[in-house]
């Protein structure tokens, strides 16, 4: 077939196809749609479209254009359809070299307008930059159709004919329909591509992420089990019922031994529809025999309809975090031990074990520096051989004394990477070899004041220096050890001090106590606890101590404490304690505040003395004294028999006689009314006189109920007393001479007691002068003022006198020169005088007899005294 023929033939076909029947159009659409759907990407789909359209319509060339990356120009795509004429390739080449901006050329025009464009003859078209190439190959008619995805032009396809032709709407419509189909398909394809790309990303994330991600459907079948999950749980997804998961994957509760309850597993719960947050699960399996800690979050999965379809969990390995957490917890436990006053060796051993637990193959030890600052003592080394511990204990420190001895000596860290070669270890090399120690790094432990307390050492069996983690552990260990040792030393010092004071206090029968107001604690010696009735173990504080004070005095004691703490710094109080079971003690407590150099109150130290026995004795003595005094007065009465009887009998006689006389006068009926009046008056006067005598005696004999002092003139008291004993003086044929100083100052005293003093002295004097003949039985009682400051009374007799060696002996208990005397009188006299603030003494008079004199302080001349 000639070229022309071919063209003609084609022309016929073209004619045929240029106006395809509806059925053909439909078949074309169907074919294209199917093929496009099957196409793997846009280009192959475009390839199908270009080819099929050209074949069916007889158009000779079909090309596709697509926007470049940044959407500024259209580039010619790699696919095209050429009818086979060689010349067309030239145009194709021209097209491939072209890039159209929006609106430029046929593709640009379609791109910009987003609709098809028909050119009857491209060679005549002003907006067809490829005219030259088209002319060369004889292309005339052209149609451009956009492929839209939504509103966006994703490609432009163009077809050419080698003859001019007018617009064929139907053809355009068919191609447009095809293009639209293509757009839809491409859109879908693109979405799928997008999805698969997202999926890829997701997959890559899931497989590279450190967190384990597991997805399971409603039935508990694993849909996803990422590599991290496989690593974490020791194996991949298995066909295991959810009830077996704990067993299968080694899931435990935080006690590390109890299998995790199946119904509480995070995945199970999330499948049930629960949100699971931060559940910690311990995992242990053959690939992780040490076990690991996971923190798991879970969420239920739901379909588009909201129905539960499964669950997803994300598990994070928190073993390191946990380890640090446990490490911190263990550290705080050691600190708590320190706080709870555990023994130092216990604390340090725990600390060493804690540090050793933080790294494999690590052994540690703590040495203490002796108080002499020159030798070391064993502190803690639970995992070092005993031989090593013994060898080191008591070793001196110095510039070449192993790692520890040198570290303490130099006050800085000493790192020995190899003990076999380091000169510091020259003396200990053999020992280290036996114990399998190769490296030793030691760091001094310092007190808060910078004193070396000891050293912390790490040992390895390989030669190397410390790693950063080990240095961090060392820092922590020395810090904690420093606290422990410093505290223990402080307590030791305190205990020693307390023990010393306690010893002193115990031997002195004192309670010793220290109150620490800041800490609200207190310490008390054993003796103190016994005095206060506290158990030896009971922790004390100020309130407990004050709680023992008698309720009536408690507020005052609290106030005294507060005053001591706040200002005066001294505490003193005498009060009662009420012990359990109601026992009462009298105590005297004295305390003093101690302050630090900044003036802050540190403690209140003090002593408490139990004065119960003394108080009791005082009370007893007072009672005894009163009894004796009373007895003395009763005895005096007995001695004054004559006076007492006489004093009473006189008025009684007078009364009786007067009464008898009156009766007789009345019987005789010659009574003078004036006489009767006088008689009755005398009877009244005498009965009053008798009453007074009785009152006077009673006052003397009564027990000292009323010991109120009053203002007295001693001259008056002497006169009254002499009247009381006047009969006895007469009876004993003695004479009492008084020489009173009328300027005698008043004294404040208990009248009966002063009378008792005088009676004793007078009766004694009367006894003393009995040995003399009646004419010489003289007693002189004189008073005088001692510069107005006191009143002195002297009772002087001319009797036998006092013991020559010690006249004062007469005041002693049970001393008596008399056959019948009790020897108590003068003792009581002295006690009375001294109670009144006075003084009494006795001496032998120069010529003969004894002289007793006492003085009492004069009342100061103020108005109050005068009024009293």
């Amino acid at each position, binding site marked *: 077939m000639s070229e022309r023929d071919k063209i003609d033939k084609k022309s016929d076909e073209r004619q045929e196809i240029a106006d395809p029947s509806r059925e053909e159009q439909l078949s074309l659409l169907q074919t294209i749609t199917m093929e496009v759907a099957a196409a793997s990407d846009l280009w192959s789909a475009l390839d199908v479209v270009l080819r099929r359209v050209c074949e069916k319509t007889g158009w000779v060339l079909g090309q596709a254009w697509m926007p470049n990356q940044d959407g500024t120009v259209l580039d010619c795509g790699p696919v095209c359809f050429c009818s086979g004429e060689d010349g067309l390739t030239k145009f194709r080449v021209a097209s491939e070299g072209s890039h159209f901006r929006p609106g430029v050329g046929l593709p640009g025009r379609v791109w910009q307008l987003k609709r098809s464009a028909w050119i009857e003859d491209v060679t005549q078209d002003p907006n067809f930059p490829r005219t030259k190439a088209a002319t060369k190959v004889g292309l005339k008619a052209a149609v451009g159709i956009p492929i839209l995805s939504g509103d966006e032009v994703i490609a432009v396809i163009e077809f050419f004919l080698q003859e001019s032709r007018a617009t064929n709407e139907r053809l355009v419509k068919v191609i447009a329909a095809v293009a639209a189909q293509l757009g839809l398909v491409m859109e879908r394809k693109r979405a799928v591509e997008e999805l698969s790309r997202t999926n890829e990303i997701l997959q890559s994330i899931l497989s590279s992420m450190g967190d384990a991600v597991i997805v399971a459907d409603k039935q508990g079948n694993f849909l996803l089990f990422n590599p991290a999950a496989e690593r974490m749980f020791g194996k991949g997804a298995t066909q295991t019922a959810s009830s077996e998961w704990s067993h299968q994957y080694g899931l435990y509760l935080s006690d590390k031994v109890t299998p995790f309850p199946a119904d509480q597993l995070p995945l199970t719960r999330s499948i049930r529809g629960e949100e699971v947050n931060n559940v910690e699960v311990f995992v242990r399996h053959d690939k992780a025999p040490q076990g690991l800690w996971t923190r798991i979050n879970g969420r239920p999965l739901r379909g588009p309809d909201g129905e539960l379809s499964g669950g997803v969990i994300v598990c994070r390995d928190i073993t390191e975090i946990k380890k640090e957490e446990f490490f911190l917890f263990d550290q705080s436990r050691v600190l708590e031990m320190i706080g709870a006053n555990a023994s130092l060796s216990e604390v340090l051993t725990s600390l060493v074990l804690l540090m050793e637990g933080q790294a494999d193959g690590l052994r540690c030890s703590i040495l203490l520096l002796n108080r002499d600052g020159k030798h070391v003592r064993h502190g803690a080394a639970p995992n070092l051989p005993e031989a090593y511990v013994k060898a080191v204990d008591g070793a001196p420190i110095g510039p070449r004394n192993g790692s520890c001895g040198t570290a303490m000596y130099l006050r800085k860290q000493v790192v020995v990477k190899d003990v076999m070669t380091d000169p510091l270890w020259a003396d200990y090399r053999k020992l280290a070899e036996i114990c399998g120690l190769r490296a030793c790094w030691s760091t001094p432990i310092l007190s808060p004041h910078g004193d070396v307390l000891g050293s912390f050492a790490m040992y390895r069996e390989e030669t190397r220096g410390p790693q950063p983690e080990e240095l961090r552990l060392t820092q922590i260990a020395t810090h904690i050890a420093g606290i422990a040792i410093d505290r223990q030393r402080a307590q030791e010092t305190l205990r020693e001090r307390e023990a010393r004071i306690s010893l002193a206090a115990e031997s002195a029968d004192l309670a010793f106590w220290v109150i620490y107001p800041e800490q609200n604690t207190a310490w008390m010696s054993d003796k103190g606890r016994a005095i206060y009735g506290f158990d030896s173990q009971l922790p004390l504080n100020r309130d407990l101590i004050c709680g023992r004070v008698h309720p009536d005095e408690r507020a005052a004691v609290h106030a005294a404490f507060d005053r001591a703490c706040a200002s005066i710094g001294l505490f003193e109080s005498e009060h009662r304690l009420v012990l359990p079971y109601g026992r009462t003690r009298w105590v005297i407590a004295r305390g003093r505040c101690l302050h630090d150099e900044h003036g802050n109150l540190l403690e209140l130290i003090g002593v408490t003395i139990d004065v119960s026995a003394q108080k009791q004795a005082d009370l007893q003595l007072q009672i005894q004294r009163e009894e004796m005094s009373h007895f003395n007065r009763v005895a005096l009465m007995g001695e004054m028999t004559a006076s007492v*009887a006489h004093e009473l*009998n006189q008025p009684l*006689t007078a*009364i009786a*006689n*007067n009464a008898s006389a*009156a009766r007789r006068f009345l019987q005789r009926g010659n009574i003078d009314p004036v*006489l009767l009046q006088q008689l009755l008056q005398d009877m009244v006067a005498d009965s009053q006189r008798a009453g007074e005598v009785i009152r006077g005696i009673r006052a003397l004999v009564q027990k000292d109920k009323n010991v109120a002092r009053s203002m007295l003139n001693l001259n008056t008291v002497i006169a009254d007393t002499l009247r009381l004993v006047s009969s006895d003086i007469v009876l004993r*044929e003695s004479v009492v001479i008084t020489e009173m100083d009328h300027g005698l100052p008043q004294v404040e005293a208990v009248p009966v007691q002063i009378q008792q003093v005088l009676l004793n002295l007078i009766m004694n004097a009367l006894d003393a002068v009995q040995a003399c003949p009646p004419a010489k039985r003289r007693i002189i009682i004189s008073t005088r003022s001692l510069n107005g400051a006191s009143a002195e009374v002297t009772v002087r007799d001319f009797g036998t006198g006092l013991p020559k060696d010690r006249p004062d002996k007469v005041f002693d208990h049970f001393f008596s020169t008399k056959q019948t005397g009790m020897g108590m009188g003068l003792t009581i006299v002295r006690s009375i005088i001294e109670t009144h603030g006075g003084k009494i003494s006795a001496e032998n008079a120069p010529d003969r007899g004894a002289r007793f004199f006492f003085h009492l302080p004069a009342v100061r001349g103020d108005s109050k005294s005068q009024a009293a």
Partner: protein
Amino acid sequence: MTSGEKSDAEIVCLVDDDLSVLKSIQRLLASDGLSVRGFNKPKEFLAHVQTHSVPVVILDIWMEEMSGLELQAQLSRLSPGTRVIIITGCDDPAAKLTALQHGVVAFFTKPFDDDQFLTAVRGALAIHPMNERAR
């Protein structure tokens, strides 16, 4: 308290330094119709006895100036015929013995029974030689 109309032989003397007792005994004696002369001070009585005849004297023992016993001793020299009755405020056996040894006619401890006392005084008056002679 003296009775001017009566002779010394009828007048009883009384010595007691306690004025109240002195008055009461005087009244008691008077109420029984006896004449009495009281002395508050022993020395006044001693002066009186030197100038008057005293048939009966009642003496108190415990007096500040002079004891009744001492007075009796002097009286026995001055007026041996005077009958003495002792009254005392203290029951003192030694004093009683001494008094009786020196021939007192009665010894009373104060306070005493009025009838016994008056009977004793009357008895003493009756046996006085002056009165015996008068009868």
